[in-house]
C-alpha cells in the first residue's frame, strides 16, 4: 500500500488525495484536544466556562448583566429624574441588540426601544450601549439598577493566565529544581543502563541469562507499591548517618531505579544488534571491554541513547508523585509540576490555571523532543524492532 502504489503507474488522483485527507483527519483529531487547551489558556477565566473554546475566534452573541450608574449620578431633566451613561466601559466596543430588566427575560426589548417599567419609569438602551433611565420620582438606594442585554462580543484573548502562572512566586526556582532533578535523573540511568546493557549483550559471565530474565520481569513492577518501602529505607539511612532523607541524590536514584529496566531492555536489544565483528576487531586490536564500550559501542549507540533519553526525560519531567515523596516540598526543592499543582486552588482545578500550566509543562519536553527526534526515530528502529 505504501511505497508501491505511490510509484505504480496510473494511480488515481483521488487515491493520493484520499491519503492526504486521511492523514489530515488523524492529525486534526490528535491535535485538536491540545489546541483546545492552548486556546483555552489564552482566554478569559469567566469565558472559559461560558462558551466553547472554538467559538472564541468569532464574535459571539452574549447575554450579560451590568449595572446602571448609581442613583447618586441622577440629574433632573424636563421634570424627570434621569440617569444617563453607557453600558460599556469603552462605548461602541460591541453592539447591543436587545435588553431587558429581568434576568429571566434579558432580551425583552429591542435595542433603541423605550421600555416602560411601570409607574412612568422608562429605560432606553441604544445599540451603542448608551442608555437613558428616567423616572418621574427620584431614584433612591446605593446601587445602580441591574439591566440585562444581549450584545455581540468581539473575540477576546488575554495572556493574564500566563502572567498568573509564570509570574507566580518561585516558579523560576521550581524550573531550576525541575532541571536539577531531571538532568541527572536522565543521564545517570542512561550511564548505568548502558554499561549493564553492554555487559548483558557482549560480555560472558555466569548468570547472564537469569539477569536478563529478571530485568524484563521488573519492567512491570508498579511504581506506587515501591514508594513506602523505599521511603522507609531512606529514612533509615538518613537517621543512621544523620543526613536528611529527602535529597536530590535520593530522587535521582529513585528515578534511576524506576527507569532502569526499560533502559536496559531497550539498550541491550540495540547493542546486541551491533555487528559482532566490530567488537571482535577491537578485541584483536587489544581493546579492553571498557575501551570497546566507550570507544566503539557508546558512539554507535547514540540513537538509542537519545530515544531513551527522551522517554526518561518526559517521564521525570512530568512526574509529580515520585518528586512529592522523595523530595522535600520546600522552596529549594519543589519541582515545577509541584509548583503548578500548588497554584491550583485548595479544592482543585481552575480551568485557566490547569490549562495554562498543562501547556507550560509541555513546552520543555517538546523542545527536547524536537531536538532529539531525528535520533529517536532511528534509535527505536534499531532498538525495539529487533525484539520481534
Amino acid at each position, binding site marked *: 500500500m505504501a511505497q508501491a502504489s505511490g510509484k505504480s503507474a496510473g494511480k488515481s488522483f483521488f487515491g493520493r488525495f484520499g491519503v492526504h485527507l486521511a492523514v489530515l483527519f488523524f492529525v486534526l483529531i490528535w491535535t485538536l484536544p491540545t489546541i483546545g487547551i492552548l486556546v483555552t489558556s489564552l482566554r478569559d477565566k469567566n469565558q472559559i466556562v461560558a462558551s466553547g473554546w472554538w467559538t472564541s475566534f468569532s464574535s459571539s452573541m452574549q447575554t450579560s448583566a451590568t449595572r446602571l450608574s448609581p442613583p447618586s449620578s441622577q440629574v433632573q431633566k424636563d421634570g424627570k429624574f434621569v440617569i444617563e451613561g453607557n453600558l460599556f466601559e469603552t462605548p461602541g466596543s460591541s453592539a447591543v441588540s436587545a435588553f431587558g430588566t429581568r434576568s429571566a427575560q434579558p432580551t425583552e426589548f429591542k435595542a433603541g426601544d423605550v421600555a416602560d417599567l411601570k409607574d412612568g419609569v422608562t429605560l432606553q438602551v441604544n445599540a451603542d450601549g448608551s442608555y437613558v433611565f428616567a423616572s418621574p420620582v427620584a431614584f433612591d438606594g446605593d446601587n445602580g439598577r441591574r439591566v440585562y442585554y444581549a450584545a455581540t462580543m468581539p473575540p477576546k484573548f488575554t495572556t493574564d493566565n500566563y502572567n498568573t502562572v509564570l509570574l507566580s512566586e518561585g516558579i523560576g526556582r521550581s524550573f531550576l529544581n525541575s532541571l536539577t532533578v531531571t538532568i541527572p535523573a536522565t543521564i545517570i540511568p542512561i550511564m548505568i543502563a548502558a554499561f549493564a546493557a553492554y555487559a548483558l549483550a557482549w560480555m560472558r559471565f555466569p548468570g547472564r541469562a537469569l539477569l536478563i530474565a529478571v530485568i524484563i520481569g521488573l519492567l512491570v513492577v508498579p511504581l506506587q507499591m515501591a514508594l513506602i518501602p523505599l521511603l522507609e529505607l531512606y529514612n533509615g539511612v538518613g537517621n543512621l548517618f544523620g543526613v536528611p532523607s529527602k535529597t536530590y541524590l535520593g530522587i535521582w536514584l529513585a528515578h534511576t531505579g524506576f527507569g532502569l529496566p526499560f533502559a536496559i531492555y531497550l539498550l541491550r536489544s540495540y547493542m546486541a544488534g551491533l555487528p559482532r565483528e566490530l567488537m571482535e576487531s577491537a578485541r*584483536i586490536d587489544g581493546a579492553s571491554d571498557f575501551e570497546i564500550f566507550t570507544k566503539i559501542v557508546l558512539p554507535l549507540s547514540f540513537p538509542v541513547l537519545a530515544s531513551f533519553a527522551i522517554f526518561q526525560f518526559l517521564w521525570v519531567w512530568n512526574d509529580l508523585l515520585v518528586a512529592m515523596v522523595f523530595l522535600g516540598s520546600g522552596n529549594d526543592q519543589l519541582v515545577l509540576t509541584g509548583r503548578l499543582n500548588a497554584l491550583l486552588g485548595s479544592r482543585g482545578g481552575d480551568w485557566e490555571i490547569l490549562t495554562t500550566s498543562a501547556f507550560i509543562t509541555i513546552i520543555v519536553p517538546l523542545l527536547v523532543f524536537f531536538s532529539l527526534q531525528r535520533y529517536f526515530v532511528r534509535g527505536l528502529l534499531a532498538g525495539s524492532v529487533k525484539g520481534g
Partner: protein
Amino acid sequence: MANLKLRSVEKAYGSIKILHGIDLDIQSGEFIVFVGPSGCGKSTLLRSIAGLEEITGGTLEIDNEVVNDVPPSKRGIAMVFQSYALYPHMTVYDNMAFGMKIAREDKAEIDRRVRQAAEILQLTKYLDRLPKAMSGGQRQRVAIGRAIVRNPKVFLFDEPLSNLDAALRVATRIEIAKLKESMPNTTMIYVTHDQVEAMTLADRIVVLKDGHVEQVGSPMQLYKKPGNLFVAQFIGSPAMNILPARVAKAGATTEVAVDGGSSVSVPIATPAGAAGTEISFGVRPEDLYVSKGTKALFEGKVDYIEQLGEVQLVYVDIGRGADRPLTAKLPGNAAVERGQTLRLDADSGDLHIFDANGSSFVPHEIEAKAA
C-alpha cells in the same frame, strides 16, 4: 614470522561439534587458503586461530607456544573480516590507528605506520574520510590497512572479497597477492569460496568438509591429483565429470570399464584386490576434446550448448548410468551443434579414478609446498 601448529583442534557449540580434530602445520611465511562448502567450519577454524572462539579440544600453537588461553590481542594476529568491520564513526586514519592508540604507542610512531600502510594501499587521500563515504573496494583496503598497521605475525582473512563486484574483486585479489610478496615473512591464512582466489593466491590450499580436513596441498596438486572424490569435484569449474565404473583389471595401470560403455586403460596403479570393484571414474570437462577417430571414450548426443565466447560448454548425454550429462569445455570455435552426436576423448594421463569410499587411487603425496 610465525608458524602455527594445530593439533586435533576441536570446537563445539554446546553439543554440536563443528570442528572434529583439525591437524595442520603452517610454516612461517606461508599463504594458506581454506576452502570448503558453506557451513563446513572455515570461519570457525579461522576464528579459533584468532582466539575469537575458544577451542574445546586440542591445542593451538603459534610460534611453538600454546595459545589456547591467550586472548586475541596477545596472539600477534590481525584479522580482516568478511564484512570489513570498520568502525563506522571513525575516520580511515583513526580506524587504522585504533589498535596502536589502545596500546598507547608513541604518536609519531602511530602516524608513521598509518601513513606507510596508507601509502601501500593507496589510501593516503582518503585518510580523513569516514568509511561510509568510501566504495566497497576502498573499505576493504582500509580493513587490510588496519591489519597491516598492527604489524602482525599472522594475517587472517575471512572471505575478504566476497562483497566486491567482479572487477574490484580481480583488482583487490592482485593487491593482496602483492601485499603478501611485500611481507614475505608474514604468515597468511585466507578463507574463500572462490576457486580463482584460492588457486591464484595459495601456497597451499586446505580443503575442509564438515569440520574435517579433506586434503592439503598446492593448488596444482589439488587440481591434478585430488585426494578424493570430494576434492576432485570441489576444485575446478565446471566440476569434474564423475561416472560409475568398474575395475576391469588391476595393476600398475588399471583397466577401467565405464558403466555400460567402453573401457579404458588408466596409468594409475591399483592393488590387485581392486579388480572387479565398483569405482568412480572422473574426467575434467577441460580435459575432454573432440575425438578425431571413430572410437572414443565417450559418445553421445549434444544435449545443450553454452557459448562463452572463447570457450563453449557442451553438455553431452552419454546415455549410460550417468544421471547428469557429461560436461565438456571445448574451444569456442569448435563447430558443435545441438543434437549432433559427439565423440569425446581425453588423454589417459588426465583421467582419475576413486575407490568406493571416494578416495583417490593416487595416494596423495606428502603435503609439499608448490613450486
